[in-house]
């Protein structure tokens, strides 16, 4: 590598290791995110997004959070966070595990400082007693004519900031994994239906799984006071014709099988019918309001449930039959009633059936996201609820018999000063008591 490219590398490194870059990028994320809440986004408001003029759509303003350049900003932020963390690691490591006692009185923090006079051995004993009593870990150094120490309390707090920043990278990686692999889809099915997972409507990704879902029951359960309790779906997973798992799910209580999670998202009423096609009896479940259709095998006849009166005791349905695109018959039936359709088949209404809408998702990144969240919280707790205190002191016997004590100010000068004053008072108390006793 020649000098010039080394110079460029250094500049790039400097840009990425700067906190200013990080704050600037965060600012960009904030501004872009804010703009995204003012312009309708395709993912949340597809109709609204359609009405935005074409130029904004082309520039990505209607799918801001999925645009390459928004991801690029997040990527740069990650790089910045990683570079900053790498640069700070050794310093934090040394500070926590290999603290250096001061080599001269100049190395004692000056803004928060005090001097305590007394015999050397008593000062040493007093300061060690007071600080260990307050939970400090002391590292001492003794050289000719000089004794010094550095004392730390809550030293793990030093790691809070680094952990917080790395947690952010883990979070973004988790989100990236989720957006690259995995899938998201939706299906609606009636009671008794069995549906291969490959046939669901997929809005993102590809389905590689091979099992089927069977809906055993679907229910819109009400409480005694008439309010909705929840929607419940009893569902089985079928693999090679065998039931391998079964669970009842409801809103807020999803069901996960082999990394694929099913969420109760919707519910509709439907009707159970029997289609009798020349002696062959086919059970059919249709969703209310024409949500789905049934094609009578070997014909171009399509059966719809246009409307229904969902009275559990006396349900009534209105069905429609299409031949190709044109409606050929419409009829009303009550429970148990049968109609002959076009002399081709007989339709019998067998009763009401729940129709359940399930969101299906496979997101291998989600656990990485939770890991990131856990690390983020741990880092923030260490940063803000576990602030470290560092005190150092020196006795230079050549000059005079006194202890020069100082505290690293940290981010809270007033609090540190209070903690420091308390320690000084305690040490002085011991020295005076010692002198009075001798």
């Amino acid at each position, binding site marked *: 590598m020649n000098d010039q490219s080394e110079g460029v590398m250094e500049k790039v490194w400097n840009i990425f290791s700067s*906190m*200013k870059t*990080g*704050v600037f990028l*965060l*600012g960009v*994320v*904030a501004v872009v*995110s*804010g703009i*995204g*809440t*003012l312009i309708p*986004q395709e*993912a*949340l*408001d597809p109709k609204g997004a359609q009405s935005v003029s074409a130029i904004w759509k082309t520039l990505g303003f209607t799918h801001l*959070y999925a645009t390459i350049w928004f991801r690029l900003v997040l990527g740069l932020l990650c790089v910045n966070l990683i570079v900053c963390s790498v640069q700070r690691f050794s310093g934090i490591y040394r500070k926590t595990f290999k603290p250096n006692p001061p080599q001269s009185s100049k190395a004692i923090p000056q803004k928060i400082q005090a001097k305590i006079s007394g015999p050397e051995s008593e000062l040493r004993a007093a300061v060690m007693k007071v600080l260990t009593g307050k939970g400090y870990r002391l590292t001492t150094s003794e050289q000719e004519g000089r004794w010094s120490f550095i004392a730390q309390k809550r030293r793990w707090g030093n790691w809070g900031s680094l952990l917080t920043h790395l947690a952010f990278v883990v979070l973004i990686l988790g*989100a990236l994994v989720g957006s690259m692999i995995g899938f*998201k889809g939706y299906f609606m099915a009636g009671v008794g239906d069995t549906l291969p997972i490959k046939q669901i409507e997929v809005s993102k990704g590809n389905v590689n799984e091979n099992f089927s879902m069977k809906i055993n029951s679907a229910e819109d359960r009400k409480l005694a006071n008439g*309010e*909705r*309790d*929840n*929607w419940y779906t009893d569902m089985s997973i079928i693999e090679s014709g065998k039931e391998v798992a079964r669970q009842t799910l*409801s*809103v*807020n*209580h*999803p069901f996960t099988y082999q990394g694929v*999670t099913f*969420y*109760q*998202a919707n519910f509709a009423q439907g009707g159970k019918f029997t289609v009798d096609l020349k002696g062959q009896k086919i059970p059919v479940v249709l969703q209310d309001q024409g949500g789905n259709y049934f094609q009578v095998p070997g014909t171009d006849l399509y059966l719809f449930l246009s409307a229904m009166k969902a009275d559990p005791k006396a349900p009534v349905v209105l069905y429609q039959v299409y031949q190709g695109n044109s409606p050929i018959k419409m009829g009303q039936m009550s429970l148990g009633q049968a109609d002959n359709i076009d002399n081709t088949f007989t339709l019998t209404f067998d009763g009401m059936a729940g129709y359940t809408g399930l*969101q299906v*998702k496979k997101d291998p990144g*989600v656990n990485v*996201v*939770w890991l990131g*969240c856990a690390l*983020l*919280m741990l880092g*923030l*707790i260490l*940063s*803000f*609820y576990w602030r470290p205190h560092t005190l150092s002191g020196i006795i230079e016997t050549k000059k005079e018999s006194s202890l020069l004590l100082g505290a690293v100010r940290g*981010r*809270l*000068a*007033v*609090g540190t000063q209070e903690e420091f004053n308390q320690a000084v008072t305690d040490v002085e108390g011991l020295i005076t008591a010692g002198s009075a006793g001798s």
Partner: protein
Amino acid sequence: MNETLNNIEVAMFYLMIIAYLLSTVMYWLTLVSKKVWLEHLATGITILGLAGNTVALIVRTIIAQRPPLSNGYEFILTFCWGIVAVYLFAEFRYKIKALGSFVMPLPFLLLTFIIMKMGPEERVASAIPPALKSQWLTFHVITAMLAYGAFAISFGLGVMYLLKSRSDDENGKSNAKGWISRFPASQILDELAYKIIGFAFPLLTLCIITGAIWANYAWGTYWSWDPKETWSLITWIIYAAYLHVRLMYGWKGKKAAWMEVFGFLAVLFTFFGVNYLLPGLHSYA
């Protein structure tokens, strides 16, 4: 039974609003008069208001048979509780009575908002959709309440700082006269605001995370960029920037105080602005 409870709740609501108004006025009077009994009275009325607030929340829990955290009205009551509880803690812990003059108008204004903008149908304890039946909702709202309450306190401290520091000389020594002279030194105000934001920031983070966990249970997505989520992220970024620029440029004092004010405006926008100006999933509260 329910009627009695409803009456108690309504009575407590008016007790709160009167107490918060009176305590605001009392705190203002303590700024101009040095009477100690006035200060005690202001604190006493604030405690009374908080007691009324607490009872109102408990009664609502009994009526609704669930935590009172499910619509705009209930959330404003919890928000007020958070502000006043964190305020009283700060008053006792740090002995800054003047802070009440800048914090106590907030719960009063929030309750006035309920009276002016919310009809009875919006206040009633109604049935909640299945999506809201989750333990995570409770964690989500409690962390929001404490974080927002603490941000309100840092807002009050920021305003005090801006008033106080106008009369500081180059060495940071105050030449303030009159009522402002009784504020604590500007450095103490600045550091206290920083400390309180340091307390609130992890809670805001936890609020966003518990929201994400809950959304993942309910809808299968932990983050969908709906306006409420996005604005909570923006608020989070503002406070994150506050914490960073303090280290980076040594932005203490005035600039920090402006960020404390600005940050709280973002909190209010996340809470009100998003619901009333922008559409989204968070149609509940």
